[in-house]
């Protein structure tokens, strides 16, 4: 039985789970693992949104939780999965430069995010106020992942993970954005992934690989 008083700590646990997955994403080499981690992140988001909905008594948050479940736990991982099996990229892995350094940079980003949101967290009246910093940390870590990766697919997963962080920020700081806007965001996300799917095929057709090393021809000369 979940009492309302214990929701705050529970949410903190879920937020830490998100953070942990972000770090795991930084250190994973295999694309398929990343997709699974992304789905897990979505699942945690779903749980946390349900918790916030329960504690705040806002029914519209249940809708966005359902949206999360459908879109981020089922649909997007499934699409990505289909994509990599169609592209024959299941076993793709990439060589990462120096994981400890990346993790260290990630740690600095976490400190930065926590420091940045500290003054704001004290203002918030919602039960979830501590999680704003974690959400920002998740966003920045996804950003770091996009910078350090050289594969098109992993960059996209980083992009989606960043969106997860944003969604978490929205639920944790404000009990969710208005429904219309959330629908708009979800639509944009879906269309974005769809376009990227088209893109993958175009890129592979042209370059015979999804490695972004090929996409460095346009430089200042």
């Amino acid at each position, binding site marked *: 039985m979940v009492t309302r008083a214990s929701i705050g700590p529970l949410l903190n646990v879920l937020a830490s789970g998100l953070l942990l997955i972000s770090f795991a994403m930084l250190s994973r080499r295999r694309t398929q693992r990343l997709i699974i981690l992304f789905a897990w992140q979505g699942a945690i988001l779903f749980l946390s949104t349900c918790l916030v909905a329960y504690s705040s008594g806002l029914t519209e948050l249940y809708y966005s939780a359902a949206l999360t479940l459908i879109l981020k736990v089922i649909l997007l991982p499934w699409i990505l999965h289909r994509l990599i099996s169609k592209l024959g990229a299941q076993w793709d892995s990439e060589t990462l430069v120096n994981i400890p350094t990346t993790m260290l940079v990630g740690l600095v980003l976490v400190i930065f995010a926590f420091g*940045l949101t500290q*003054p*704001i967290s004290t*203002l*918030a*009246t919602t039960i979830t106020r501590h999680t704003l910093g974690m959400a*920002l940390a998740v*966003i920045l870590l996804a*950003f770091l992942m*996009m910078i350090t990766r050289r594969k*098109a697919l992993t*960059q996209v997963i980083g*992009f989606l993970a*960043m*969106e997860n962080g*944003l969604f978490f*920020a*929205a639920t944790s*700081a*404000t*009990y969710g*954005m*208005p429904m*219309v*806007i959330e629908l*708009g*965001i979800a*639509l*944009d996300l879906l*269309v*974005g992934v769809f*376009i*990227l799917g*088209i*893109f993958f095929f*175009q*890129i592979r*057709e*042209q*370059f015979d690989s999804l490695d*972004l090393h*090929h*996409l*460095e*021809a*346009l430089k*200042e*000369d």
Partner: protein
Amino acid sequence: MEILLVLGLPLLGAVTLALFGARRFAPELNVGFSLATLAAAALLVLRVIHYGPMLIGREQFFVDSFNVFLVALTAFVGFTTAIFSRPYMRIEELHGSLNSLRLRLYHSMYQLFMAAMFLALLTNNMGLLWVAMEAATLSTVLLVSLYRTKASLEAAWKYFILCGVGIAQALFGTILLYFAAEQTLGREGMTALLWTHLNAVKGHLEPRVLGLAFVFFLVGYGTKVGLAPLHNWLPDAHAEGPTPVSAVLSGLLLNVALYAVIRCKVLVEGSIGVLLPSRMLMTFGLLSAILGAFFLWRQRDIKRLFGYSSIEHMGIITFAFGLGGPVANFAALLHMTVHSLTKSSIFFTAGHASQAAGTQNMDGIRGLVGVSPTIGWGLMLGSLAILGMPPFGVFSSEFLILITAMRGHPWATPFLLIALGVAFAGIFGKVQPMVFGESDAQPLPHSPALVPVFVHLAMVLVLGLYMPPALAEWYRAAARLIG
């Protein structure tokens, strides 16, 4: 009603062209829809002139003197670009770089892009503004990669990822804004994100939150404006996409993104004072102006060259908005107008010039006056206009900005002068041999539609020589609104 027309017509156009975009008459259909949109926008303008600002659709949409002028500009340039693209895209098809299916995609996405921009301009809701900006990005990504060449794919990828990341930052800013609004306005569903409501209570919004939100807004929407150091996508996307897309990206999308930044700035300044936002805008603006000007020198591709010129000019406009005050804002709005008219006309001529020469490399483009005098002189005059030569409107706005900067922030003037000087030498030195000199290029198979070029340039010239009082009053009202 007019607002619905302005929003609905391009959307209808997108659907129609998605169905019929592969037919012979598709370019004409595109022009038709753009013309209808322009007419609707004109009606909207008349209405605003008569009845003043208005709010409709349960306050979700609004028009005031700031956005109505951008709506008019967007509709106008959208229409002229559609005229230009008619022969241009036919020539591309004839060259075999496009087939009719891709043309269908192009036409449909073009209208969708216009719809997204109108939505961004007209919405009163900061969340919808974000959604519209993202939609504008998504609709142009496939346009940038329309040729499916390696370079265009790379450009589109960069465009998507950089703008996607940037716009994610803007979403975080929006969340923070909503968070602050909720503390003041309470949870009233959609109203907490309405700009007009926020504007009314901006003095009570929590300054710490808004300060942070502004940083995210500036980084996020600033990426789409092409502010340095987040400008990397811009020259690539301009160079590799089809020329009409370059023209609307440069002439319209950058303006709309800057419009979003300024809307946020107004709110933030009400809460934390002018110091931080104006400092940030001035810094980013100057940096972009200088960086853009210096990078001009190293370009070989004609469209990249003018892409960097756009970065430079966006920098100048951002700087002017950072200066603040009625004069600087007036100058910035004027510069937005003349830049968008001039830059799109330059892209029109540059597109035909590279079609005639068969390359976008400036070393391969020679003696345009000999091939087609209209293209040659159009490019020459456009370049002179964008460089701020006296009779043109760019001169007046740049002059105003310089004067204001000298009065309030004398330290910035040398930087501005360096940027302008370097850009002048860079562009003029490259354009002059392209226009004059010997050439053996063939004439184009379809006669180019260069009326828009000269219409645009004539308007810029008129704005430089004589500004109609009604227009000046309009700019002044908008400048007052921005504060």
